[in-house]
């Protein structure tokens, strides 16, 4: 499984958040579970 650059992942159990700063293979796990991808935020550009 490929982890996508710039995507956030989170753990359902402990709310830990993770940012992928370098793309790579493997499965991100936390508390023994694969972490879920967090949906992208839609915020208007303010600067």
């Amino acid at each position, binding site marked *: 499984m490929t982890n996508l*650059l*710039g995507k*956030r992942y989170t753990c359902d159990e402990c709310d830990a958040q993770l*940012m992928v*700063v*370098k*793309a790579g293979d493997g499965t991100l796990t936390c508390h023994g579970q694969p972490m879920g991808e967090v949906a*992208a*935020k839609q*915020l*208007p*550009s*303010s*600067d």
Partner: protein
Amino acid sequence: MNLAVLLTMAADALGDRGAISGGGHHLSYRDLRDAAADFATTLPVEASAVVYAGPITAATPIALFGAAWAGCSFAPLNYRLPQDALIPLATALAPAQVVAAADRFESLAEALPSGRLDEDLLIAPCAVPTNDPVEAPSRPAVLLYTSGTSAAPKVAALGHDNLLSYIWNTVELAAAGEEEAALVAVPSFHIAGIAALLSNVYAGRRIVPMASFSAERWLRSARDEKITHAFLVPTMLARIVECAQAHPELERPDLRVLSYGGARMPLPVLEAALQLFPMTSFVNAYGLTETSSTVALLSPEDHRRARDGDDVARRRLGSVGRAIPGIEIEVVDDAGVALAHESEGRLRIRGSQVGGTYLDGTAALGDDGWLLTGDRGRIDPDGYVWVLGREDDVVIRGGENITPAEIEDALLRHPDIAQSAVVGLPDVQWGEQIAAAVVLRGGRALSAHEVRAHVQATIGTFKTPTTVAFVTELPMTPSGKVLRRVVRERLLAQVIGEADRR
């Protein structure tokens, strides 16, 4: 984590896409990363900061990301200051590497002998870096002098984590389309300039730096460079509106998003701008140097509803909108107790993007992590935040708190008045009296009596200035904030002078 990771991510994701173009230079994301990494290797080991004294150019993001890469603080200075004012600001940051525009670096290099670099030397083709950004930088990422409108300026320290938290909470990597371009006209020594560089690089939006602002040049650049996004401080937008109204033959750029902030936007200017750019989405951003830029924003949807005539939305044009993700905003009383909706008090802010310290070691935050902004405000039941002005600027007349903003807006509604600043002056009878410095539009003439009559008819006698002084210009910071302490000193001198002559 190092702030430079924003650039390495953008380079990995976007590679050859244009990152910045200006002054004849065109750098891709990969070029920008390579130049920043290369600059990092040239920094002397003893340097703790990179002092940057020059306008915003293609060299600015190289110095910003390059300093971060090496674990040095990026410390941009107001390069327009006279030499004798600039040098103490620079030496306070020693030991540092100086990067300066050609006309500035001789004297700066003398004051800071550890190193100097003409900014042009930064923009040269570089090999792919072999060095990685310093992993856990211990120094702040950015050092910024605060505006100092009501007190002496301080150096706010923003950590790598503060700035990363801001970008990661508000921007998606490479979310911008390939055709998007941002005109950056705010200088790098303003937090909005830093934020513009960081967020546009991370979003993948080509940056077009504008070293020296004029309304006409801005309108031309926006058209010629096919600008889609821009940030302006209120004085810049006011000049653009005036220029576009005076020259209807100048084409209006087809902007998608125009964001503004840095100082309070006068409502009459905003209303004129909304009419002038009917297809553009507007965003009002509120933030402080200490908060790594934006903490609240008034959205394009809010502006659109106001433009369509919705009464609630029209009133909300006077607000700064709602807190962004990851930020809490509260209104508290003088004892620090949180107040209910609609109550007026001191605004405070909490969140991971808020910087915790100043360079002199003083803490910016209370024990509970809140930053007192120094602004007075209130929050409505829907979470819209109203910034009423700096606490220090409130005029207390006969025990009543009066914020200058309302009076300044009333003054600006007069067609002959271009700018105004309202301050409090000592008064025997009332404790303080209201005094206004007024700049008239070119070729217009008004008497103090006519100005007073206009304010009286608009907002009533109690808030009408006792003293009205006509001036040719207001003293301002480069970001368009009125230097009220200077206005106050000048008006006071004038009032005392008049009393002496009587």
